[in-house]
């Protein structure tokens, strides 16, 4: 049980990164970015390209993947979303599905559907009072926590963060107060891309690289963001921890094949009992 809780915590940290990314873009652009799964995959492949193809160490490859996917996300914003900014959010959601198909198939085109692995050394797990913590799990926990801390500082302590929260609160008023909306949206996508890429690298570290690794996390990520009260990045972290823990603990009782089903059940329960999400009350909408 303690082992399941530990695994769940690590898994929650991992889900938190794309869940934050999803919440950030939802808050500012008011649409659910369905391509978040494909973005995670793209991040893993960018790291694979730098690490296995070019031979860069993973500590170099991971930041390169984050920067690369950040740039791609800004490119997609300019090429796709900005052109349909005034369409309703269903149109934007469908557009993001299209982006997901393009990203995934571009990856298949370049690397095929083969299962690959990053070029990293395998280390012994750490053991402590009968609990086992993989080296990868430790890296995931530390990297995800650092990324969350950076996002929290950016959101609450920097001018960019205030601009992002102001636009999420009221986009027209933000413009009236002198905030350059287009530039802030670009930065939001860059940050969102970097978080998704980091998640992709961490997932790949713990397992394999294949064209569906991100999409496999799609339900968990959406569940985490919605449970946290979508649009609220801090709630998304709490939602991710809940989903991570529930998925791992449920694996003690039911087969891990049903892991996503369990996320779905939690999501449905939360939506039935608290449609605004567990942490949705903090947002004042009157």
């Amino acid at each position: 049980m303690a082992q399941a809780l530990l695994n769940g915590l690590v898994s929650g940290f991992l889900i938190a990164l794309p869940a934050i990314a999803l919440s950030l873009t939802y808050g500012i652009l008011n649409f659910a970015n369905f391509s978040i799964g494909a973005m995670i995959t793209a991040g893993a492949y960018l790291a694979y390209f730098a690490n296995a193809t070019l031979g860069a160490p993973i500590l170099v490859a991971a930041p390169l993947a984050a920067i690369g996917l950040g740039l791609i996300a800004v490119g997609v914003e300019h090429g796709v979303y900005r052109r349909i900014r005034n369409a309703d959010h269903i149109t934007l959601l469908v557009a993001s599905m299209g982006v997901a198909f393009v990203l995934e198939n571009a990856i298949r085109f370049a690397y095929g559907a083969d299962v690959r692995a990053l070029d990293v050394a395998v280390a012994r797990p750490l053991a402590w009072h009968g609990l086992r913590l993989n080296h990868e799990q430790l890296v995931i926990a530390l990297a995800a926590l650092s990324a969350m801390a950076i996002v929290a500082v950016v959101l609450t302590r920097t001018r960019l963060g205030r601009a992002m929260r102001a636009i999420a609160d009221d986009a027209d008023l933000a413009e009236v107060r002198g905030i350059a909306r287009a530039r802030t949206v670009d930065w939001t996508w860059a940050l969102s891309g970097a978080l998704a890429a980091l998640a992709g690298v961490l997932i790949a570290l713990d397992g394999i690289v294949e064209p569906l690794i991100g999409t496999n996390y799609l339900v968990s990520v959406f569940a985490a963001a919605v449970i946290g009260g979508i649009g609220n990045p801090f709630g998304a972290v709490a939602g991710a921890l809940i989903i991570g823990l529930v998925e791992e603990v449920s694996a003690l009782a039911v087969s891990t094949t049903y892991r996503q089903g369990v996320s779905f059940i939690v999501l449905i329960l939360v939506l039935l009992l608290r449609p605004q999400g567990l942490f949705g009350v903090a947002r004042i909408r009157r």
Partner: protein
Amino acid sequence: MSEAPAALELVDVAAGYGAADILASVTLRAAAGRITTIAGPNGAGKSTLIKTLAGLLRPRRGRILVGGRDVTALSPAERARAGLGYVPQERNVFRNLTIGENLRIGHEFIHRRASRREFALARARVLDLFPDLAPRLNGLAGALSGGQRQMLAMGCALISGPSVLLLDEPSAGLSPRYVATMLDAVAQVNRSGVSVLMIEQNLVEAMRVSHDAILLVGGEIRGRWNAAAFLADPEVRTLFLGGTQRVAAPAQPERQRDGASAA
């Protein structure tokens, strides 16, 4: 019209939503250093006019000048940086941010290179004007009462030191005590050199502090008065006071607001 130089000028502006023009052809000047109030019955296009001035609505035709500079092509953010402060009627503060953050946002995107000291001075000036806000800087803006929220909204527009202030019904929804406080604050801001253009339904209170009054009916300017003469004009009285002889303020400002909105 006015001999004083214009703080704000509209030349033949047409604007609206969808197919129809709400403003047909509006030409007006708000004199520098004065308070100009735009009055008009509901549906006259007052809100459309102020949104067009703030840049939230693009005019179909015409030009908008701030201090003689053509700002027609500028975005709301660029107009704010050109010295145009705007207080919307509703949704005028960031509700999920603290009061301190709201004030900071009002300053930092217009004076991008300002030092901490400059911001502190600007904030102290605003808190002098609205001392109610000072003890609540860490509270959420959405938790404020209507009157306090209106003060914060005005503080956020003032903190950057605009040359022209646009106010969309600063007294709307306020309790009688706050209506006078709010309009006194407008007068005080004006005395410090800021030109004010406001929309107001509460005409008796508004004329107490205004210098000029402009009447907007059906998307067109019907005339311009000295504030002192405005409420005595027969046309204005027919429009707002139902043609009765009643000119003095009724005892209850709320009732009087209702009277003003009945066209």
